[in-house]
């Protein structure tokens, strides 16, 4: 499966951070499937390695686990030594800004610093997120692609994860400018599949005890785990795409309403309340104003920026990654949804 169009040879050393995670473990699988035989998987000492061990059990000579913490510079140096390609999937998913920033940005800085003296590095693949786009100052029904505006005031959205990811991307661009670190940024949509227990937040939220269906007629930017992992792998491997950003979204996206209907019929029925976008926008506006007026008696977790970013009617394009990287979602949406619903029914959903 190794192609002449690939950046590195099959025995070049590849580092994968966050390799035991939902996406990371599948990226390892995808790289093995492509025939790469020198993978270094970086995991934390206390990580649950069940999924990763299952994937690498038949490939023990091709994969080496390295345990450490990306907050530790010495661990980063060990991880970065001699690598030609880095897939950086480790990220902060905490509820606090400081926690997300530390686990996304400080860790990335440590890793990039460790790579500065590495003469072999061909590419640093930074796995970001579609959530970094602001979706503001645009008309409804527009198509979001890689030219979309990244949130300019990330803290104001009150989403620590998005904040961490935006700052992580900024840091990478800074290192590219200053030190010439070759990079590709991948921004997956809502990754789903067996192993993921929650319904996408773009469909709705269950904060208030009842599931509020907020997506309505919006397409949901889903990307099935295997498709997403292959997209990330190809973004690391394909020649001639350094400095590019790629959004990863599957084809034939279901609407939020359609997804919810299928979910209820295939997994379990539950009560949901549809809230139209203009109404929820007003709610977010009032919440935001009340939060400011009451000096934070309710934190501004619902605000207009968040509302626009997640629930404004938006279409999604995956043309760039298809054209430049040659990626196509191998698992069609029907099959992907069937697998996901089957998994949720079997394991019991946690909504």
């Amino acid at each position: 499966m190794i192609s002449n169009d690939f950046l590195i040879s099959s025995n070049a050393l590849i580092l994968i951070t966050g390799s035991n995670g939902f996406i990371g473990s599948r990226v390892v699988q995808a790289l093995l499937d492509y025939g790469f035989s020198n993978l270094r998987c970086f995991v934390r000492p206390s990580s649950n390695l069940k999924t990763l061990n299952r994937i690498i059990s038949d490939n023990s000579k091709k994969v080496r686990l390295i345990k450490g913490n990306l907050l530790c510079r010495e661990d980063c140096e060990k991880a970065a030594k001699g690598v030609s390609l880095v897939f950086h999937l480790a990220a902060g998913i905490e509820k606090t800004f400081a926690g997300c920033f530390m686990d996304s940005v400080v860790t990335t800085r440590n890793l990039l610093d460790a790579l500065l003296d590495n003469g072999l590095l061909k590419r640093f693949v930074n796995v970001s997120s579609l959530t970094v786009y602001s979706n503001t100052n645009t008309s409804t029904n527009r198509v979001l692609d890689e030219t979309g505006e990244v949130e300019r005031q990330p803290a104001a959205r009150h989403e620590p994860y998005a904040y961490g990811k935006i700052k992580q991307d900024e840091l990478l661009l800074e290192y590219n400018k200053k030190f010439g670190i070759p990079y590709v940024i991948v921004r997956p949509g809502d990754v789903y599949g067996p192993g993921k227990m929650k319904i996408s937040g773009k469909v709705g939220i269950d904060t208030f005890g009842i599931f509020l269906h907020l997506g309505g007629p919006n397409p949901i930017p889903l990307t099935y785990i295997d498709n997403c992992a292959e997209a990330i792998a190809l973004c690391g491997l394909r020649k001639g795409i350094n400095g590019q950003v790629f959004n990863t979204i599957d084809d034939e996206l279901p609407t939020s309403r359609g997804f919810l209907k299928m979910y209820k019929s295939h997994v379990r029925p539950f009560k949901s309340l549809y809230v139209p976008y203009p109404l929820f926008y007003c709610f977010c506006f009032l919440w935001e104003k009340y939060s400011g007026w009451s000096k934070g008696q309710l934190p501004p977790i619902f605000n207009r920026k968040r509302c626009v970013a997640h629930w404004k009617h938006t279409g999604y394009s995956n043309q760039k990654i298809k054209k430049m990287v040659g990626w196509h979602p191998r698992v069609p949406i029907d099959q992907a949804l069937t697998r996901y619903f089957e998994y949720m029914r079997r394991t019991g959903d946690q909504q």
Partner: protein
Amino acid sequence: MIRVAIVGCGRQADQHAIEIQSIPGCQIVGFCDKEELMAKQIAERFDVKHYFVDINELLYVTSPQVVHVTTPPQSHLALGTLCLEAGANVLFEKPFTLNSSEAEQILQLAGEKNLKITVGHNVQFCHAAMKMRELIKKGYLGGPPIHLESIWCYNFADPGYTKALLGDSDHWVRSLPGKMLHNIVSHGISKIAEFLTGTSPHVIAYGYTSNFLKRIEEYDILDELRAIITDQNDTTAYFTFSTQINPAIHQLRIYGQKNSLVVDDLHQTVIRVPQNYKSYLNHFIPPLLEAKQFLSNSATNIGKFLRNDFYFEQGRRTLIELFYHSVLQQAPVPIPYGEILLTSKIMDSIFEQLRLQE
């Protein structure tokens, strides 16, 4: 205008910064963290011009009147000493120090420099705690408490803390003398220390690792604690810490000669335990009286919410306000030093006994 600096820009710093910026007449003049990126990110989010990686530079450039130290307790003595030597009053995030010896050193230096110290036992300043103190001051208990029961639960279902600690074998909490307990129990212990006298409490402690942690092979962490504490006047107290009790409870029960009280931090209720009645009336009237009190507490809480006086970190804001008031007006500190030291001593004794058990 009171000039405030924050040292340590991790998870706790945001809460301090939010509260400081909400208090009129306060200005955050600088942030400091040994990791520059952490100091920079919080300075940007809170629109503060100066950030530093060197505390000496922070103290020199910004000349703060108050420094909030929100680093792990391993660094409190060193950082607190630098702040006090530079003429700043200091608010430490809990736990105050690693042990009572360090606590004594800080308090002594503060006394010598004529500066003030406090610790982030913010739960002591939530509405319910303030109401409790008011009632006791009026003599509701009929004298000093006979006995206290403080129960403090922590639910491992909260992924924020749990994942950070359990997911990191090098987490700083693991190197504290009392490990995880050290970082959490001071809130519950300080509630007891408030009512004890003397400087040498007698403590009997028993701790163990819950089955939950054993199942995930975390044998190194004790997460269940029971303690009996007695002071020189024979006031007694039970302290319970649990990660396994559901729903989680943060309660203080105070038993007096005349009356008793139940203070619930999570529900923000203060309930006066009803007197006993004769015969079957004892089964009918006290429950009604308690129901009336719960309703009244609920109405009070709703009223406070409508008046914007019921935010999540209200206790922290009140503590900070009282501390700044004590700095500016030379008023008494919100938490007496004796209480801080006694809390520290009780914790020393508990952790020493747990260490011997191991």
